[in-house]
């Protein structure tokens, strides 16, 4: 007890130093301000729409349910296919029914998670790839002008990958019986939201 008491001032001292060091606000080097802004804009774009967020997370959830090799094949495939769709969108090539395609992706991915659907691996990858094109095209046509292309793209892809990571992380609940039920309920919720997105797109 005596040793603890005598050690207390040192702990207080360290805490005080850490507080003071952590107190400082962010320093913005103004030369890079626009470029840092581009990265943050790209980082925020994929999470700016609930339809995109739910579909990306559902991809991760489904991958976690399916296990290897789908678990890692989907996160490898999706960013590249989505970027391909984004490139097509940037080039101004039209893709009909984009919003409906995005809503359909939420419905079908949600249903797949809800029913723990296990199609052949190739079919899974193709299905997710097609959805990726729709999501990427929508993002590509919405990309704001005047951004630093590289930093925006880096933020954009990183955010998309992180959303998959969130889905895979949550999907780890699949190893417990209660977790399986929870994931299926989450799939049902995503599918329901997809129906709402479809109704909004069709309206």
């Amino acid at each position, binding site marked *: 007890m005596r040793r603890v008491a005598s050690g207390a*001032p040192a702990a*207080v*001292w360290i805490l*005080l*130093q850490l*507080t*003071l*060091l952590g*107190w*400082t606000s962010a*320093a913005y*080097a*103004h*030369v*890079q301000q626009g470029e840092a802004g581009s990265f943050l804009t790209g980082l925020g774009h994929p999470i700016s729409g609930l339809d995109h967020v739910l579909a990306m997370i559902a991809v991760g959830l489904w991958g976690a349910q399916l296990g*290897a090799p789908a678990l*890692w094949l989907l*996160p*490898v*495939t999706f*960013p*590249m296919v*989505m*970027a*391909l769709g*984004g*490139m*097509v*969108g*940037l*080039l*101004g090539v039209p893709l009909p029914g984009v919003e409906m395609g995005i809503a359909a992706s939420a419905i079908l991915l949600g249903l797949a998670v809800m029913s723990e659907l296990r199609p052949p691996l190739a079919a899974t990858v193709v299905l997710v790839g097609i959805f990726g094109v729709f999501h990427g095209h929508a993002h*590509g046509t919405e*990309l704001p002008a005047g951004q630093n*292309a*590289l*930093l*925006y*793209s*880096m933020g*954009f*892809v*990183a955010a*998309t*990958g992180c959303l998959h990571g969130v889905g895979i992380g949550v999907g780890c609940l699949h190893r417990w019986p209660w977790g399986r039920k929870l994931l299926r309920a989450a799939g049902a919720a995503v599918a329901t939201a997809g129906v709402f997105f479809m109704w909004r797109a069709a309206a």
Partner: protein
Amino acid sequence: MSGRATRKARWALALAGGFGMAVWPSWAQAHLVTTGLGPLYDGLSHFALTPEDLVPALALALLAGLRGPAHGRRALSVLPAAWLLGGSFGLAAHGGVSPVVTSISFVLLGGLLAVDARLPLYATTMLAALLGLFHGYLNGTAMAQPGLGALALLGIVVAAFTLVAVAASLVAPLRAAWTRVAVRVAGSWIAAIGLLLLGWAFRPGA
């Protein structure tokens, strides 16, 4: 000295120390030209702060590391040499290269990394040489204008060498499946960034 006096002295010391640390920071100089570090360190910093160069070099290092130590050693020797050569040409030529080259580097190297391409050693050599020549040339032409010169180029080459050495040697011993998959996911992200860059480069009105 009584216990109370000791505690007071400790508190005073803590406050004085905290205040000292709070006022200790010096100015943060955002502009490299005012750092006074010299062109060599400006080159090093340029490479570290330029994703156009850093990311493809990282992709090559990861790709070579996935293929094993022989590929890593080859990339380590060829890339900096080619970068120096390309940079020397760029310093002398003052000509431009389309920035689309950067996008192609991202797509090609990221794509190969994502699919875990089983490249022979000569292919790694070719990729390292092409990457070094093109990006070195771009650096050389960019540095010729402000007159940074050969020392800055040398700084870039040293940074590229260090990056390849560190990244390839970290990846080469990986055996667990998930660790290699993580490296491949990084490749897919790099390829995706490259595809978006291509779209940006050719978008109507760009």
